[in-house]
């Protein structure tokens, strides 16, 4: 992965690739138009291939990374450096992202096939800059390409020099309370997809994690696990019944306190190492000692190796 030395977003942004108040009825039309703009300014690009790749990516998961901000992107073989096209819309364009408002700023990013990490840096820088919805409104209202370019040069939107936990994590993760009952925990696991869930206390401080394995462990008395051969016990039902009829056990009684936490600014390479050495698929991300998000191994791998 290329790691840039203090790169700025405006290094990649050409005035000719900026479209103010673009008119498009949906994301596909917007991608068409922005791709057309890129092909005009950069010779040698195959517009059809580009549109197909970007739309294919968009169809998997919408690339809306912040309210009002979409970043359609793709990797392409014929591209030798990162290409960026920028569009604003005053009315907003529907990207089909559930729970997200209409997109007012769209940034199309094309990266060389052999440099999958570069766009993550751009994404991360944009997400950080446009975290405040007011910024999006402000840029969306700018009248021409020069003003937009000015915004980025004076604001000097800097790309981070490497990918960090904050760029890879899922914010506001699902949590459980220390005082939640055993039943509530099992129910949560049944409803949600999560394999492990962070546990917090009344004050919101992280206390531990709970996984289905912890529930299972609680059902089977430890002294039975000492035996190498459990073939003398056929019925698991009594253990399951005992667990089901348990009403007073709280999550704090069986959660695990052995969890892997990292600071929000930790580089991706260290996350990778933690995934491997601790044999875990989820790392909790802390900011000022409070839980702010978590990085899943799947997201990590997909973002870094696939997108």
């Amino acid at each position: 992965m290329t790691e840039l030395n203090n790169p700025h977003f405006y290094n990649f942004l050409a005035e000719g690739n900026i479209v103010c108040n673009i008119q498009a009825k949906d994301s596909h039309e917007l991608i068409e138009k922005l791709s057309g703009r890129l092909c005009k300014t950069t010779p040698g690009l195959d517009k059809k291939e580009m549109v197909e790749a970007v739309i294919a990516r968009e169809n998997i998961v919408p690339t809306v990374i912040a309210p009002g901000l979409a970043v359609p992107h793709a990797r392409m073989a014929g591209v030798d450096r990162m290409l960026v096209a920028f569009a604003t819309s005053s009315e907003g364009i529907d990207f089909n992202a559930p729970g997200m408002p209409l997109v007012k700023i769209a940034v199309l990013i094309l990266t060389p096939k052999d440099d999958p990490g570069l766009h993550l840096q751009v994404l991360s820088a944009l997400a950080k800059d446009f975290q405040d919805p007011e910024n999006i409104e402000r840029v969306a209202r700018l009248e021409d390409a020069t003003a937009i370019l000015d915004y980025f040069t004076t604001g000097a939107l800097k790309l981070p020099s490497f990918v960090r936990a904050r760029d890879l994590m899922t914010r506001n993760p699902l949590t459980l309370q220390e005082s939640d009952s055993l039943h509530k925990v099992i129910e949560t696991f049944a409803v949600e997809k999560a394999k492990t869930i962070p546990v917090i206390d009344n004050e919101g401080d992280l206390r531990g994690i709970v996984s289905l394995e912890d529930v299972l462990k609680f059902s089977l008395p430890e002294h039975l696990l000492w035996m190498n051969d459990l073939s003398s016990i056929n019925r698991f039902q009594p253990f399951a019944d005992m667990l089901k009829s348990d009403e007073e056990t709280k999550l704090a009684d069986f959660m695990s306190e052995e969890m892997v936490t990292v600071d929000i600014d930790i580089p991706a390479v260290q996350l990778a190492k933690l995934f491997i050495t601790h044999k875990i698929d989820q790392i909790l991300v802390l900011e000022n000692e409070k839980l702010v998000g978590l990085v899943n191994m799947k997201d990590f791998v997909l973002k870094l190796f696939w997108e």
Partner: protein
Amino acid sequence: MHSEEGSVQLSTKALIIRLLILIGVSLTVYFTSSTTNALNPTQAIACSVFIGIIMGTLFFWNFRLAIAFIGLSVLIGTNSMNIATFVESSALEVILFLVGMMIIVGALRDLGFFTWIVQLIVSMPNLSGKKFIAVTAIASALLACAVDEVTSIIFISTLIFQVCDRLKLNPIPYILICVLCTNVGSAGTMMGNPVGIYIGTKGGLTFGDFMLWSFPIMLVALLATVALTMFYFRKDLKQFDVSLAERLSRNLTLVPKVKVPYKRGLTLLVVTIVLIASHHQLESILELGKNSILLIAPLLCSGVVMILRRDRARHYVEREVDWWTLLFFMLLFAIAGTLEHTNVSGVMAHYFSSICGTSMTSLVPFILGITAVGSAFVDNVIFVAAFCPVIEELSLNIHDLPLWWALLFGACFGGNITMIGSTANIVALGMLEKRSHSHVTFFQWLKVGLLSAILATAIAWVALITLAPFMPDRYANVPFKKIDTKRIFKDKNVILTGELSVAAPTLPKKEGYKTFLLVKNARKTLKRILVYVPDSYNGKIEMHKENSFSGKMNSQEDSRFMATLILDKTPTQNGH
């Protein structure tokens, strides 16, 4: 298997303060002992390094192995010890005994033996708080006798956590009662505690000796400890009945009933114990050296286990054997060997007999008290390793059996005093912190620990003093160089090796005995012992040839010879 206790991060300041105290005390020991001429320079160095290592393990428990490594290097570097002594005193036989036992414990766990015990206790009929804790505590103590105290406390603590989890009780009182009883129980056999097998090896004690003398005393002390601790925690035990009744009223049991196959595990344990128990008889039949079967019995059994359970053999050796602790013990034994090598133990033995004389009534409580207090703060293995040569030295002219027991009881019972007194305490507290996130404070432990230690030690004291006259006096191999005017022999069974010559007619006669002189050069002076051989003695006596003679020895006032020895009718082969 044994979880390493949580490492406490020391601040740099605390680290430096502790290091300075350590070096300060170590140097003080060196200067006071060398300036007062109590010890010669080599002995002073050996002593100060030894004290430094003891304090090092106390202050920096997590780095104890590192400290032992460095300490050993310092001892060899200062010529307080050489490689040969190091190898000889590292007690490889004891280490291998423990390795064998740990492998057997791993197999027992695999085979469901411990599961069976836990299941038996949990599914006891008519369970009540008192019954549960009394049975668990006694089971824990007896399990400690059969395998070892650390293994026992690991399994019993798990049982307690399970029951307390289900009943939503605070596990601290239950854990405390069981740990205190386990420490008491560990004095019952030589398997109970690493110090047991070490004392057995050094003192030449057999499994039978332990069963005859230490096991019954341990049982009395155990019952007293169970009663005391149950009384101490009586309020908490009442809560057990309330919670249990409430749980049973909702048709919930403590644990589902399952059938646990225990026969193979039980067979393995019984075979091992029988082999260990019959070691003395086997050694006599096979004409082997003392305790040779004892020390190889666990190796033999674990070897068979590793063949029968081939697929698990590597797991047993790598995961079930606590190599970290064993390595530490080996180095401690070696380090304590320096005290013997530089004859510090001789000086200590002389010091002991000069303040306590040779009477049991003062020596037994003295050794019992010193070891108990010492074991409360430093690893009892260090203490016992340092004391064994002293007792060996004392055993030359003193009726030694009660002293070995005093050392054993002091080391095991003293472990109850503080929370760092024994490995079992540390392991149990580590589990407590990890499992139920509750902490026991130093004083919370000290109150009940000290009480129970005082009770158990007092019982051992009274029992040893009462039983001492009934304990057989064993034959001590006394080298001529150890016979001098400072050492008083009084009706002591000894084995002497020297040349026998006909006595001059002027020497004292004794009715019914023939008089001879036993002579040998020791430290370039000719030492003579007057030997009385019964007229009825038919054994062959070769004159002017090295021979071993056993009998009762008494110090002699007459300046022409050091002592008198009345030869037994039948010379005994046994003795150490």
